[in-house]
């Protein structure tokens, strides 16, 4: 019974009860029944919000009048509803599901009935949870303010629910008017009820379409969650709860034979059309005629109640009467537990198992299919119980098919309808609904109503009298139809060795003497389908005279797959292990064409490039160079890797270039040995390994990047000096030039500077646009090598290249010609030449020398300004920014500072030094 219908009647327009379940609210020792409805509200601007409505209710809730709203729990971001499994306890199949509902405000425990409906409910609630996507706004639950909950006694456990939580919802303050809203909704409910009386059929159809819809939704869910093998490992590594279970389960099904063995269970199957009668006699001759107590009883009835009440209200006292009669007549040698009773109007099916087997029954589901009036009503049709006994799935169907001799095609159709419309929900709602045919064992019993055709009544009776059932059987419609494969295809029926079970005068063994004088027929039948089924008996029971039918029974030995616990554990372990392996195998993995990179003889401002290829394995992966701890970048400043990150498809390649370039920022430390051409890069694969790449090499120290005083002490070319000496001289403090302790007396200015200036003085004094035309890169490298090797005589380069080399040299000085500490005083005394000269005189000797030397050279250039078109302003602006550098860095250089630096230099160009 779908109780969401009752809840729906209490809701306002625009709200929809997605699914409802009846459960037990556990608070301490108290157990109270609650109806839990998941209610959806569509927001005007799109999107939706959910809340769990908890109702108290009377009996099985049918209409809105049967339920009273108790609490509302909004499905907010902090809402969780989880199944609680008892720790350390063995899980008992078929027991209630305990769930824990938690939000910030409250914590409730419920017990929900075991079965697929509860599964679906939990699944729907899980889907309703808003998740943690920061992109979606927090649910506001404004719509909840329209509902009013049951007033709780003041001393009640106010910690729970809506009473507290509502304070946090906007709109609650207007709840004073909410009462009337509530009334509106109630009156809505009433009018709905009014409609119902006139259009009950409509309503039935509505609920029917809803049912269908939810089924198609389930199918969609299945399609969308299809997992392909190659995806599997990814999903595994995503650590998403539950998916791993699904995979393990499907593997367990595949490997079933490894851990199960076949054990026979004795099944009793009985069918009895009781013609609307109440039990008047003991049923033992039918139910307990065997010596051995059956393990399982499947007992079906038809025409349990022929009254209109039973038909219209689905309610009949006969159910209890017959249930009791059966329960009392089960085999006395065993104790039985009722597993399930399912009834549709007069068609009832009862399932019992021996108590010791109860723990091995699981996944019990029932369904009914009406094929009666309008093809839908329950006066004809079938009911079924499906369950799992140990590891074998079993479906028992009890059907009452269409009557009348000539209606055999209608009976065939009823059978087909039952087969196609009988769909059982699965424990895992993501799986498609089960049909009857999807079971290992199917037992089909009932008043199938097939008659004996083409023989007149007397002939039939005569054959029965002669016990010539074989001849008679040839005229049996069921036999003929099965042979024609129009019905019960693949089913087996035992040989009929008993006389037709229909139709007798009630209370006797006499054939029907009524007006209609119906021909005897084997209406009541038992068929089966599946492996490992042996029929032990198939008979009717003439002793029972309550009905115009005789009951029929059949006993079977059915081989059921029983789990060997040890083998099961072993198989499970193997599966889990294989998943682990798969997960490991699917950790992204690449191969690198090269992991060691050696850059030989790296020179100042000379690019060196090396490359390697990343070849991806079978898992798509993302790679990225990552920073080592406490470092700002993934590699040293003189190195770069391109691209530094990327995505690789399976079996594809990426080429990474490593570029090494030493500039003024990194040269000095390489000269001094404080830094080396050595680095380790970490190439990281997302969800995978890290690879270390080693970069090694050697740097050839250069005058570029060396301090002025260091160069002054280098009487030899820098390449001829041992690295230790270079390192020592580079690290030498600036103010040691005059202490006379040096072994070799220093030069006044760096020889490399002299070489360049001298070259320009000799070759370029009249060169047009000197310092303004760019040089050539190749010539720069040549000039650098000449300077560093001292082979100045070999120097042949364009004037512009040498001029640029000079500027680069000045730029690469770690301490500018006018030392950083003098920077601000220089700017301050700009315009005052005497003061400016005073500042210059405070510079360290070598810096002072270099400054004066450069100014003298520039003045010489200006003397030739008619030829070279240079003027003081141009030179002052070029050299101003090189000689006077802001200690705070270039970025902070303001225009006024730049102008002042220019003016400062300009003074020295137009005045005598």
């Amino acid at each position, binding site marked *: 019974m779908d109780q969401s219908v009752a809840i729906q009647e209490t809701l306002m327009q625009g709200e929809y009860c997605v699914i409802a379940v009846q459960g037990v609210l*556990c608070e301490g020792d108290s157990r109270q029944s609650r109806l839990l409805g998941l209610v959806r509200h569509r927001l005007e601007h799109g999107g939706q919000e959910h809340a769990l409505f908890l109702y108290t209710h009377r009996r099985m809730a049918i209409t809105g009048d049967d339920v009273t709203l108790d609490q509302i729990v909004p499905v907010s971001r902090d809402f969780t509803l989880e*199944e*609680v*499994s*008892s*720790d*350390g*306890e*063995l*899980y*008992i*199949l*078929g*027991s*209630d*599901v*305990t769930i824990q509902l938690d939000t910030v405000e409250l914590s409730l*425990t419920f017990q929900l*009935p*075991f079965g697929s409906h509860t*599964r679906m409910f939990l699944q729907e609630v899980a889907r309703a949870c808003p998740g943690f996507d920061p992109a979606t706004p927090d649910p506001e639950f404004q719509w909840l303010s329209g509902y009013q909950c049951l007033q709780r006694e003041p001393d009640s456990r106010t910690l729970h629910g809506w009473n507290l939580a509502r304070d946090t919802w906007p709109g609650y303050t207007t709840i004073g008017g909410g009462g009337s809203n509530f009334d509106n909704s109630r009156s809505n409910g009433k009018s709905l009820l009014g409609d119902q009386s006139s259009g009950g059929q409509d309503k039935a159809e509505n609920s029917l379409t809803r049912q269908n819809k939810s089924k198609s939704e389930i199918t969609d869910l299945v399609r969308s969650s299809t997992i392909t093998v190659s995806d599997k490992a990814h999903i595994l590594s995503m650590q998403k*709860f*539950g998916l791993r*279970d699904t995979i393990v*389960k499907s593997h367990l099904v595949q490997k079933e034979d490894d851990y199960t063995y076949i054990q026979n269970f004795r099944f009793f199957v009985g069918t009895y059309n009781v013609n609307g009668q109440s039990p008047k006699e003991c049923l033992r001759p039918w139910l307990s005629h065997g010596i051995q107590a059956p393990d399982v009883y499947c007992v079906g009835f038809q025409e349990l109640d022929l009254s209109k009440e039973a038909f219209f209200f689905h309610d009949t006292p006969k159910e209890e009467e017959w249930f009791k009669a059966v*329960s*009392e*007549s*089960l*085999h*006395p040698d065993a*104790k*039985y*537990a*009722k597993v399930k009773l399912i009834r549709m109007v007069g068609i009832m099916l009862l399932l019992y198992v021996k*108590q010791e087997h*109860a*723990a091995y*029954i*699981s996944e019990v589901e029932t369904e009914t299919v009406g094929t009666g009036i309008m093809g839908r009503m329950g006066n004809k049709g079938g009911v079924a119980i499906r369950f799992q006994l140990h590891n074998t799935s079993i479906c028992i169907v009890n059907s009452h098919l269409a009557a009348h001799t000539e209606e055999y095609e209608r009976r065939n159709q009823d059978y087909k309808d039952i087969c196609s419309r009988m769909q059982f929900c699965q*424990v895992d709602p993501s799986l498609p609904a089960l049909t009857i045919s999807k079971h290992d064992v199917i037992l089909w019993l009932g008043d199938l109503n097939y008659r004996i055709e083409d023989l007149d009544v007397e002939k039939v009776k005569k054959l029965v009298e002669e016990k010539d059932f074989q001849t008679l059987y040839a005229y049996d419609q069921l036999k003929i139809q099965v042979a024609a494969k129009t019905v019960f295809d693949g089913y087996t029926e035992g040989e009929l060795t008993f006389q037709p079970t229909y139709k007798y005068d009630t209370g006797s063994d006499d054939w029907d003497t009524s007006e209609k004088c119906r021909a005897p027929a084997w209406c009541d039948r038992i068929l089966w389908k599946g492996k490992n089924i042996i029929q032990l008996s198939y008979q009717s029971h003439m002793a029972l005279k309550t009905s115009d039918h005789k009951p029929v029974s059949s006993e079977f030995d059915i081989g059921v797959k029983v789990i060997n616990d040890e083998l099961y554990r072993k198989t*499970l372990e193997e599966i*889990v*292990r294989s998943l*682990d*392996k798969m*997960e*490991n195998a699917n*950790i992204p993995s690449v191969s690198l064409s090269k992991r060691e990179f050696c850059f030989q003889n790296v020179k100042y401002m000379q690019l060196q490039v090396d490359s390697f290829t990343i070849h991806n394995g079978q898992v798509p992966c993302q790679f990225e160079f990552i920073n*080592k*701890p406490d470092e700002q970048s993934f590699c040293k400043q003189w190195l770069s890797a391109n691209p530094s990150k990327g995505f690789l498809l399976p079996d594809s390649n990426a080429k990474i270039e490593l570029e090494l370039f030493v500039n003024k920022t990194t040269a000095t430390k390489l000269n001094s040995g404080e830094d080396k051409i050595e680095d*380790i890069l*970490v*190439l990281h694969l997302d969800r*995978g*390994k*890290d*690879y*270390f790449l*080693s970069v090694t090499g050697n740097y050839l120290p250069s005058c570029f990047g060396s301090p002025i005083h260091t160069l002054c002490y280098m009487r030899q070319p820098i390449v001829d000096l041992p690295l230790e000496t270079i390192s020592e001289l580079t690290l030498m403090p600036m103010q040691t030039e005059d202490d006379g302790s040096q072994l070799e007396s220093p030069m006044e200015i760096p020889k490399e500077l002299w070489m360049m200036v001298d070259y320009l003085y000799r070759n370029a004094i009249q060169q047009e646009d000197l310092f303004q035309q760019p040089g050539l890169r190749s010539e720069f490298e040549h000039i650098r090598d000449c300077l560093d090797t001292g082979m100045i005589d070999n120097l042949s380069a364009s004037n512009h290249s040498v001029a640029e080399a000079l500027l680069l040299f000045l730029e690469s000085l770690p301490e500018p010609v006018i030392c950083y500490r003098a920077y601000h005083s220089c700017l301050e005394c700009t315009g005052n030449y005497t003061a400016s000269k005073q500042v210059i005189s405070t510079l360290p000797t070598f810096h002072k020398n270099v400054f004066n030397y450069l100014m003298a050279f520039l003045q010489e250039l200006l003397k030739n300004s008619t030829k070279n078109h240079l003027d003081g302003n141009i030179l002052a602006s070029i050299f101003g920014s090189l000689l006077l550098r802001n200690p705070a860095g270039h970025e902070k250089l303001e225009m006024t500072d730049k102008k002042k630096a220019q003016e400062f230099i300009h003074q020295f160009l137009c005045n005598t030094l």
Partner: protein
Amino acid sequence: MATAPYNYSYIFKYIIIGDMGVGKSCLLHQFTEKKFMADCPHTIGVEFGTRIIEVSGQKIKLQIWDTAGQERFRAVTRSYYRGAAGALMVYDITRRSTYNHLSSWLTDARNLTNPNTVIILIGNKADLDAQRDVTYEEAKQFAEENGLLFLEASAKTGENVEDAFLEAAKKIYQNIQDGSLDLNAAESGVQHKPSAPQGGRLTSEPQPQREGCGC
């Protein structure tokens, strides 16, 4: 099969450290694949392996980081110690130098992990007893002095490999149970799945729905 008994409820992060060539990767491979990798190349970087184990009925996913042992990578591999719940410190019983370096590895492990990180000392290559260069007793004493778990194992034969990983996990789990390891600490190295049963919330008696039918 209504519940989900196959999933893990904890994730422990492990690191494997020790000199180059002591068999760190082979131990990992033996543990995850149950196979000996004969020609295992030197690990230049950090590799991963995972496996789900069971401790006291709890499924635990081990996430194992196998680091490069070469000295020149030491500075980089140190960054992988953070947030490890367990450390397997490996030496080679046939090479004394790898044993001598343990104190340096231990210093790193102590400095770079949290105080609750469980460290297990593993003397690998126990199958090569004839070439033994470090006695069991000596290593045992070292382990005791430093409060380490200790086992001799062989990645080749598989001897004690399983135990090495399990012993550490048991100790970590015990630390969780007695509260000395705070799961909420950022660097505990343990992740707990919130959806797993917390235990003890309900005394749920098994309640079969079916009522018995006395006949």
